[in-house]
């Protein structure tokens, strides 16, 4: 399925980011360009007994100020962040929903840990107090489709709706699903992903993977591609987008056309211990083929940057195998926000679109010494640069790989 082939494009006409270093798109973007971190000591609960004690919390996101009380009561923080981001993305795109048939719009989100904190609270009530104390909203707040469902209902959107899960890679998989729907018959898709994985039980679950940074110094905790990398820091937030179909010769009337999804591919890694090559290189190659571009056409790579030595090296090898060692600028500004699971890749895509808008590459200020195995040209400090095409990479826990090519129109 090539976007170019079909004579149409999947065009981003609206976006909204909510991140630990900025709870609106412009605040997030300014902080990111200036290297302002959102990683701080974890405050949502007493994490002193946990193997991770810093996190990317969004300090100024208060659902009660932004959403009606009924919705706040029915939803987990993950859905609240997604709902607000979706509304802002619609507003950013200047969409008048009344002008579009309800069936011609869709909602696709990536989910990962679902309504984990809401779920924990109700499981606790069940076991500490008894079944009749469980909230009637547990069934609609905890499950992974809650955000898509609430956005659909909240805006009267009646087209095909979906939810994809591939841990950190899911946000890109969701974009590909949006492109598929536009190819079928949808005119517009609200798409993206958010995450709020900082409930005490959810953090404990993530800890079991053994990939957390155990450092207390927020500035030295999450260091993608650094010789001193020692794991990642969890964060919350994400981004939602409006994508619309643009057919050849019919330019969309939206105020701003941020760019388009020019190529996409996903792969899965071989089983652990197989000795076979991991799937990321193939994902990159297929995504470039899908976009019908050469590696030389890519101006910047937004890397997955897990911040764990072995994973960083594998990613560097995949990038080098396609582009050549140190041949393409690579950046991982998520060092400023942490790893957001389903919200992570959408935030990278938001950065790619804003990089195209402002002709600037946000830096990776956490980097001091490049890890010896990584033959990468990392953009340390934000710099102005021509950006027409960005490659966004995401890997999901267990072996999911996704690559998306985001290009200027």
């Amino acid at each position, binding site marked *: 399925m090539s976007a170019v082939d079909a004579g149409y494009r999947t065009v981003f006409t609206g976006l909204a980011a909510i991140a630990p270093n900025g709870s609106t798109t412009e605040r997030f973007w300014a902080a990111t360009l200036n290297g302002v971190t959102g990683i701080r000591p974890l405050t949502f609960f007493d994490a002193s007994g946990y193997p991770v004690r810093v996190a990317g919390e969004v300090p100024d996101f208060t659902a009660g100020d932004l959403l009606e009380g009924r919705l706040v009561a029915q939803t987990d923080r993950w859905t609240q962040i997604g709902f607000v981001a979706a509304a802002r993305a619609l507003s950013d795109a200047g969409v008048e929903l009344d002008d579009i048939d309800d069936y011609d719009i869709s909602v696709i989100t990536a989910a990962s840990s679902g309504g984990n904190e809401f779920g924990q609270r109700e499981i606790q009530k069940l076991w500490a107090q008894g079944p009749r104390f469980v909230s009637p909203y547990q069934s609609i707040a905890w499950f*992974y489709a809650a955000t898509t469902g609430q956005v659909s209902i909240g805006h009267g959107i009646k087209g095909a709706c979906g939810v994809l*899960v591939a841990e950190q890679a899911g946000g890109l998989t969701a974009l590909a699903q949006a492109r598929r729907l536009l190819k079928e018959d949808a005119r517009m898709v609200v798409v993206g992903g958010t995450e709020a994985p900082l409930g005490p039980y959810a953090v404990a679950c993530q800890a079991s993977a053994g990939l957390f940074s155990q450092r207390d110094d927020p500035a030295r905790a999450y260091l993608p591609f650094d010789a001193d990398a020692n794991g990642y820091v969890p964060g919350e937030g994400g981004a939602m987008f409006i994508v619309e179909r643009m057919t050849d010769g019919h330019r969309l009337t939206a105020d701003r056309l941020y760019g388009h999804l020019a190529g996409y591919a996903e792969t899965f890694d071989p089983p652990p211990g197989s000795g076979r090559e991991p799937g990321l290189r193939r994902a990159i190659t297929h995504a470039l083929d899908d976009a019908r571009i050469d590696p030389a056409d890519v101006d910047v790579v937004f890397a997955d940057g897990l911040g764990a030595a072995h994973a960083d090296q594998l990613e560097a090898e995949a990038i080098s195998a396609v582009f050549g060692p140190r041949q393409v600028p690579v950046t991982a500004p998520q060092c400023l926000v942490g790893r957001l699971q389903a919200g992570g890749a959408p935030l990278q895509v938001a950065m790619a679109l804003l990089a195209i808008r402002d002709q600037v590459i946000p830096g990776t200020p956490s980097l001091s010494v490049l890890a010896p195995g990584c033959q990468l040209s990392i953009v340390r400090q934000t710099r102005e640069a021509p950006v027409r095409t960005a490659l966004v990479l995401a890997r999901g826990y267990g072996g999911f790989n996704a690559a998306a090519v985001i290009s200027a129109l």
Partner: protein
Amino acid sequence: MTGWGASITGVGVIAPGGIGREQYWQTLTAGRTATREIALFDASRFLSRIAAEADFDPVAAGLTEAEIERMDRCAQFAVVAAREAMADAGIGAGTVAPERTGVSIGSAVGCTTRLEAEYLVVSDRGANWVVRPELGSPHLYQALVPSSITAEVAWTVGAEGPAALVSTGCTSGLDAVARGVDLISEDAADVVIAGATDAPISPITVACFDAINATSRRNDDPAHASRPFDRDRDGFVLGEGAAVVILESPEHARRRGAHVYAEILGFAQRSNAYHMTGLKPDGLDMAEAIAVAMRRAGILPETISYINAHGSGTMQNDRHETAAFKASLGSHAYEVPVSSIKSMIGHSLGAIGALEVAACALAIEEDVVPPTANLDNPDPTLELDYVPIKARKNVNDVVLSVGSGFGGFQSAMLLARPAFAAGR
């Protein structure tokens, strides 16, 4: 959606009433109900104390100790069903390149059964909000994030192509199979392992549905508790299970001489944008999904031979989907047999859509319509032919399967006999 479609060449099933594809079909065609008093945990504190449980022994099913320790019950179901489906399709090591093998698994609630059980360990049985991570299983992250189910299936079948989990609540199964067909139709894979799994019979999930009066409280008569379209229905009966189908393009299946159960011809999904759990009685959004699926498949209402209904056993569903059939199929709605296998195997949330796809493939193969068990007194306001109690011989050229779920999602899929699909 020209060129959209795929062949089903393998079927694997874990279901209440018996393990494996053959026992599944026996249960369905015998009209035997597998609903019973909950045995998986002590349910005496709950309002609904019944469910359709699978008699699943992971060791007998061939899982290793390490696999059993690592995986939630629903992932175990999916892996075992995937292995059966691969064997059934005659796909072994070396048949298909790993890079050209994709996975699309659906699940509504993922590994939440294990998530709840492990929570009790780290929280001192719910006493502590801030838990003790050091007491937790090393596999807690797999329980938190349900894409681990897809990862397990990919490992077991050796898939390295496109892979993701679809989680749209109770339409997850149909939606995941449809995504698998997407991958085949786009030539992103030669073979896709598609299906869905859920193992939600846990205290928290039972409590969830108690809290919204969604499940049946016919605790004194569990075998007759799931009563779709019956006057005396009082809610759905929770179920569990998994089904996996092997999808490939008709050309690919022909080239390797594979047996084809059915072709998937069309699919559409629509949403009601109305209520997270409520359904409007007019059924218009499901009708729209059915109409779009028919249009995409190039199928006229009159050619549909059987409808595998959502039939969950709630009054609002019965009215909603009956109205949807009448609105989308017109007078043919009154001619075509309609049945709900949830009357026998309960409602396994996301898994059920894949179990229904498997049932449709077998119904096409065997020319039998599975019945709606317990339909002793049809709701007189509904009027359609719901195939009560006994299976029926029927020439099943084209079958419609529908699903309806929390969030307002409505899905419709059309499957056909290979000879019919080829002759269109």
